């Protein structure tokens, strides 16, 4: 007899119970965001996944309404008990200028705008790249504003009005910031100009300049020497040998010792192609 049937029987109701539990959690969270925020159990830790589910569901609940904010559009502008009132936001960044976003478009734009905003408690991360609670709160704020129809410049302005330009991942191209924007390009151009000027400059060590006159003069001298003496140009062994420089007596003694060790005699020379005593 197969024993599969019993676990299967247990699993099915467990799965159903889990699904119901998850669904009830989401519904509860939706109910929290659609109701009066101050009716929440104050300070209760809200489950993040339920919050996301609630935010995704909220636009559809409030989508039919026109004009001012209403319940179901997130907690930002709910009249009477919201942490921020809509009139203040409008006073700061003006009336919404964009479309009210929902669904995938809302999430996509939240992520994109989140890349432009700095997580204020992280080291150089955008809020879209940070899992910190502050970054999550800021992302939720971006999502709420997009849902209300505020466009990207307005949302960036909203954060800038609170935090200053520090919150923007890209500094604005104005005032001292121009140094950051154009400084590297100017330095690069200056470097290229410097290299170009240096390459065009005559070599100060060449007395005849860099026109090749030195090499030509040397060639002419050699030609004159060869025609005067009647030597063949390839017979270099007949050219007079240069005097070897005088040797340091101490170095000379050392060299003799090395020669004796390496070649067996203190005046021996290395054999052509040889690599020492063992070769």
């Amino acid at each position, binding site marked *: 007899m197969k024993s599969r049937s019993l676990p299967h029987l247990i699993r099915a109701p467990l799965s159903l119970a889990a699904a119901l539990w998850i669904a009830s959690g989401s519904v509860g969270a939706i109910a929290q965001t659609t109701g009066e925020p101050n009716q929440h159990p*104050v300070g209760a830790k809200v489950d993040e996944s339920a919050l996301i589910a609630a935010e995704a569901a909220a636009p559809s609940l409030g989508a039919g309404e026109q004009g001012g904010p209403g319940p179901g559009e997130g907690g930002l502008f709910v009249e*009477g008990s919201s*942490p*921020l009132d809509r009139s*203040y936001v409008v006073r700061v960044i003006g009336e919404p200028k964009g479309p009210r976003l929902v669904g995938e478009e809302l999430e996509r734009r939240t992520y994109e705008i989140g890349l432009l905003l700095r997580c204020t408690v992280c080291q150089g991360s955008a809020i879209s790249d940070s899992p910190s609670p502050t970054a999550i*709160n800021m992302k939720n*704020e971006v999502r709420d504003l997009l849902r209300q129809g505020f466009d990207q410049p307005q949302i960036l302005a909203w954060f800038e009005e609170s935090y200053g330009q520090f919150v923007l991942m890209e500094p604005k191209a104005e005032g001292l910031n121009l140094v950051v924007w154009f400084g590297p390009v100017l*330095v690069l151009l200056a470097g290229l100009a410097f290299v170009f000027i240096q390459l065009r400059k005559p070599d100060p060590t060449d007395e005849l300049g860099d026109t090749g006159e030195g090499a030509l003069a040397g060639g002419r001298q050699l030609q004159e020497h060869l025609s005067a003496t009647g030597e063949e140009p390839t017979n270099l062994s007949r050219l007079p040998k240069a005097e070897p420089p005088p040797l340091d007596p101490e170095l000379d003694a050392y060299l003799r010792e090395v020669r004796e060790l390496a070649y067996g005699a203190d005046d021996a020379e290395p054999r052509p192609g040889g690599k020492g005593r063992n070769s």
Partner: protein
Amino acid sequence: MEPSIELQSRKRPGVHKGVLIAGLVIVLPLLILFAASFGNDPHAVRSPLVGREAPPFTLSPVDGSAPVSLASLRGKPVVLNFWATWCEPCKREHGVLHQGARAFGDQVQFIGVVYEDEKPKIEAFLERYGSGYPALLDDGGKTAIAYGITGVPETFFIDASGKVVSKYNGPLDPQDLRARVLPLLEGP
């Protein structure tokens, strides 16, 4: 001729004047910038809210009493302190603010907004260190965002007309607190 003598007499290559000027043009502004900013706390950014209307809020106190709104406090200066139980400097500062709230009495309203914290921990903290003024919960951190909070403690000094007069980053000591509250009492 001695080779060493020839080496010694060879002219050392000097610093090119143009290179020196170009280097100074690049490096000097950076040095000035570093010198001017050295020692500054990168988080101590001047708040753009100073001189402007304080962002309004309505938040519930941790003790479950009626929500408190900033608008309802219009006509009285407000010391708005963002803090958390997990913030060590906030513990030191809590005593200063507690004393301040008692010293200034009805003249100034002290308010604490708890930043990214949990209710049981806040209750335990207030039980242990005392509570002389409302501690408000900022679920979702929207008030902290509106005030541009980058860490705790941070304190805003709001005059009777609802305008932000100054902001203080870090734990206040009694002298700082006094120096910032007294101008609020002179009126807007």
